[in-house]
C-alpha cells in the first residue's frame, strides 16, 4: 500500500478505514449501460449502425467511463477514522478534502443500499449534522461493506450518547411492521398515471437519440391502425383504461420497492429507526428529541379506501427533497394503524393528530372555497365551449355538460375542504388541519416554532381572513393555519407562543 507521504505526522493509514474494493465491480458494471443500449439499438434497427448511433453510444460510453473513473478515484482515496470524539474523512487526489465532524454534532446515521451496491453486499453510510438548507451538512461513505457500516453506525451512536443521560434501554421494540394486506393501498397513489407518461416520454427520447423513430416501429404502427379502425369514443376509453391500469401496476411496483421489509422500531437510547426497501434498502434514524411533530396525510384515492400515511416532522432530515423522501414513518396503511403508530411515536396522549375538537374556521373560508370551485368549473368548461364557438355545436354541448357535472362535484369538494379546516392547541403541540384533495393534519411542538409568517392575499383581505404560518427548523420549514379571521389568527399565534407577537398587536375599539 502506498501511504500518503505528503501529510506530515500520522501519515500512515494505520487505523483508517477504506471503502470496500468490491466498489470496483460496481463501477465496472455501470459500463454495461451504454454497451447494452448500443446492442439494443443494433437489434431495433436491424444491424445498421449509422454514424449518429455510433456517436451517441460512444459519447455515452465516455461519460460512463468518466463517472466510473471518478468512482474509482473515490475508492482509492477515501479514508475515514472514528476517534473518541470525532469522525474524520479524507478524500480526493487533486482536490484533497478533509472533514472532521464532532461526534456530538451528529444527528443521524442512515444506511442506504442502491441495487448495484446490494448485489455486491455494499452499502452507503450517511452522516447528518442537521443543517437544513446546505449540501455541506452531511457526509457520505459510499461503498463500505454492510457489516462494517452497521458496526460503524453502532459505534458512532454509542460514542455520541456516552455522555448523555438516556431513558432506560429496555424499550427496544418494534412499533410497526409491514402487513402485506396493505398492498391494497399500493395502486392508490396518483403518481402511477404520471409515471406512465414519464416512462413513455423517456423511452421516446432514448429511442430518438439512437436514431430509431419510435413512431415508425411496427408495434406503434399496428396500434395506430387499430385505433383508426374503431369508433373514437371507444378508442379513447380503451386508451384511458390502459393508462390507468399501467399506472396502477406502476404504483403497486413502487409500493413494493419502497416498502418491502418495512419496520419502524424504537431503538436503544431514544431513536426511531425506519427500515424499508426491496432493491434499494433505506434506513433512517430519527432521534426522539429531534422529532418535533407528526403529520397525517390522506390523499384522495387513499382516503376513500380508509387509508392514510404518517410523516415525521423532524430536524436533521436534510434539505427539502431529502426531507420529502426520508420523513415517512409509515407506508400507506389503514387510518387506525397510522393513528396507533402516531400515539406510540409521540406518546403525549391520544388523538394528537385527529380532527376531533379542533376549532372550525369562519364562514368566509367556506365562501372562498366555493368561489374557487365555481371559478375552476367555469374555466375548465370554457375550454370545450370556446372551441365550440369555433368548431361547431358538438363542443358547445360538451362544454355545457362538463360545467353542469363539474359544479356539484367541485362544490362538494369545497364543503369537504371547509370541514377539514381546523386548528387548536393540545398541550405542548399546535395542531392544524387543511386540504381539499389531500387532507393534512399536522401537530407541531410549540417550542419548535421559531417565528411567524402571516400572509394575506388581496382576496383574503376582502374576506377579512389571513393565513398564519409557524416557521420551524423541522420538516418543511413552515406549517400553516389557513383562512382564519385576523383577530382569531393573531390571538391563536400569541397563545401558542406567548410573548413573541404581543408587542406588535393592537386593539381596534371600533371594530367589534
Amino acid at each position, binding site marked *: 500500500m502506498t501511504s500518503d507521504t505528503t501529510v506530515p505526522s500520522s501519515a500512515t493509514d494505520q487505523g483508517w478505514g477504506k471503502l470496500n474494493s468490491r466498489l470496483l465491480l460496481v463501477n465496472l458494471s455501470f459500463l454495461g449501460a451504454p454497451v447494452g443500449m448500443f446492442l439494443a439499438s443494433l437489434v431495433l434497427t436491424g444491424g445498421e449502425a449509422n454514424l449518429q448511433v455510433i456517436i451517441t453510444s460512444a459519447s455515452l460510453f465516455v461519460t460512463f467511463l468518466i463517472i466510473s473513473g471518478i468512482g474509482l478515484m473515490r475508492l482509492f482515496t477515501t479514508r475515514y477514522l472514528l476517534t473518541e470524539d470525532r469522525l474524520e474523512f479524507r478524500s480526493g487526489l487533486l482536490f484533497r478534502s478533509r472533514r472532521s465532524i464532532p461526534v456530538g454534532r451528529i444527528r443521524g446515521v442512515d444506511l442506504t443500499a442502491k441495487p448495484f451496491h446490494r448485489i455486491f453486499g455494499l452499502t452507503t453510510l450517511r452522516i447528518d449534522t*442537521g443543517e*437544513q*438548507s446546505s449540501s455541506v451538512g452531511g457526509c457520505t461513505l459510499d461503498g463500505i461493506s454492510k457489516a462494517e457500516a452497521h458496526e460503524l453506525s453502532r459505534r458512532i451512536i454509542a460514542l455520541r450518547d456516552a455522555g448523555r443521560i438516556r431513558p432506560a434501554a429496555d424499550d427496544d421494540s418494534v412499533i410497526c411492521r409491514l402487513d402485506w394486506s396493505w398492498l391494497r393501498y399500493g395502486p392508490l397513489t396518483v403518481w402511477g398515471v404520471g409515471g406512465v407518461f414519464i416512462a413513455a416520454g423517456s423511452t421516446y427520447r432514448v429511442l430518438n437519440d439512437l436514431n430509431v423513430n419510435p413512431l415508425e416501429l411496427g408495434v406503434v404502427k399496428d396500434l395506430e391502425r387499430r385505433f383508426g379502425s374503431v369508433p373514437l369514443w371507444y378508442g379513447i376509453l380503451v386508451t384511458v383504461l390502459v393508462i390507468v391500469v399501467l399506472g396502477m401496476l406502476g404504483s403497486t411496483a413502487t409500493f413494493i420497492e419502497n416498502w418491502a421489509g418495512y419496520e419502524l422500531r424504537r431503538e436503544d437510547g431514544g431513536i426511531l429507526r425506519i427500515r424499508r426497501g426491496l432493491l434499494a434498502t433505506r434506513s433512517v434514524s430519527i432521534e426522539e428529541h429531534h422529532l418535533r411533530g407528526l403529520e397525517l396525510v390522506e390523499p384522495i384515492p387513499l382516503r376513500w379506501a380508509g387509508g392514510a400515511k404518517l410523516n415525521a416532522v423532524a*430536524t436533521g432530515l436534510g*434539505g*427539502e427533497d431529502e426531507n420529502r423522501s426520508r420523513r415517512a414513518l409509515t407506508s400507506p396503511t389503514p387510518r387506525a394503524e397510522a393513528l396507533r403508530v402516531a400515539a406510540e411515536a409521540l406518546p403525549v396522549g391520544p388523538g394528537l393528530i385527529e380532527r376531533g375538537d379542533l376549532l372550525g374556521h369562519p364562514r368566509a373560508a367556506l365562501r372562498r372555497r366555493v368561489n374557487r370551485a365555481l371559478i375552476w368549473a367555469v374555466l375548465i368548461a370554457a375550454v370545450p365551449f370556446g372551441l365550440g364557438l369555433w368548431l361547431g355545436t358538438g363542443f358547445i354541448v360538451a362544454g355545457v355538460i362538463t360545467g353542469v357535472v363539474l359544479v356539484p362535484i367541485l362544490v362538494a369538494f369545497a364543503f369537504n375542504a371547509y370541514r377539514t379546516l381546523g386548528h387548536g392547541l393540545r398541550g405542548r403541540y399546535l395542531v392544524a388541519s387543511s386540504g381539499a384533495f389531500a387532507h393534512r393534519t399536522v401537530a407541531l411542538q410549540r417550542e419548535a416554532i*421559531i*417565528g*411567524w*409568517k*402571516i*400572509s*394575506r*392575499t*388581496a382576496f383574503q*383581505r376582502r374576506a377579512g381572513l389571513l393565513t398564519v*404560518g409557524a*416557521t*420551524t*427548523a423541522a420538516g*418543511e*420549514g*413552515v406549517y400553516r393555519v389557513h383562512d382564519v*379571521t*385576523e*383577530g*382569531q389568527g*393573531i*390571538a391563536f399565534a400569541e397563545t401558542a407562543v406567548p410573548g*413573541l*407577537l404581543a*408587542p*406588535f*398587536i*393592537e*386593539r*381596534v*375599539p371600533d*371594530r*367589534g
Partner: protein
Amino acid sequence: MERDDNLRLRPPRHRVDRRALGWWTLQSTLFALPLPLTFGILWATIPPTREFFMWATLISCLPGLLYMAVMPAWRYRVHRWEATDDAVYAASGWLWQQWRVVPLSRVQTVDTLRGPIQQMFGLSGVTVATASSSGAVKIKGIDHKVAEALVEYLAARVQAAPGDAT
C-alpha cells in the same frame, strides 16, 4: 372568542426609504417593457402588418403601465420594518402581503445584500435568517447606512441572546 375580534397586527414602526419608490419603478420596467418593445419594433419594421402590430403594441403597454403606476406606490404603503429588543418584525408585499416575526434568540445569520440597481439608489437589503428554510425576514429598500446600523445592532443583540437557535 369575541374579545379576539378587535385584535390586529399594528404596522411595523419604520417605513422603507423613499428612494425605494424609484428602485421598484425601475424594476417594474424590466417586467413591463420587453413585450411592447418587441411589438413596437415589428410595427416599425414590417409595413404590411403595421395596423395589427400597432394595436398589439398599444394593448400590451396597458398592463405594464398599470403595473408601473400601481405597484411601487402600493408597496411603499405596505413595506415597513422594526427591530425591538427581542424580535425583528417586517411587513412586505402589495397584492399579496406578508408579516414576518422572528425572535432574536432564534436568529442564525444577518446578511446584507445590495443588487446593482439597489446600489444605484443607495439602498440596501437586510436578511435575517433562522434555522427554518422559509423563516427568513427580508427587509429591502432601506438606506444603506440605516441597514449597516441595523445589522450591527442585530449582530450585537443576537450574540447577547441565549439559546442555540433551533
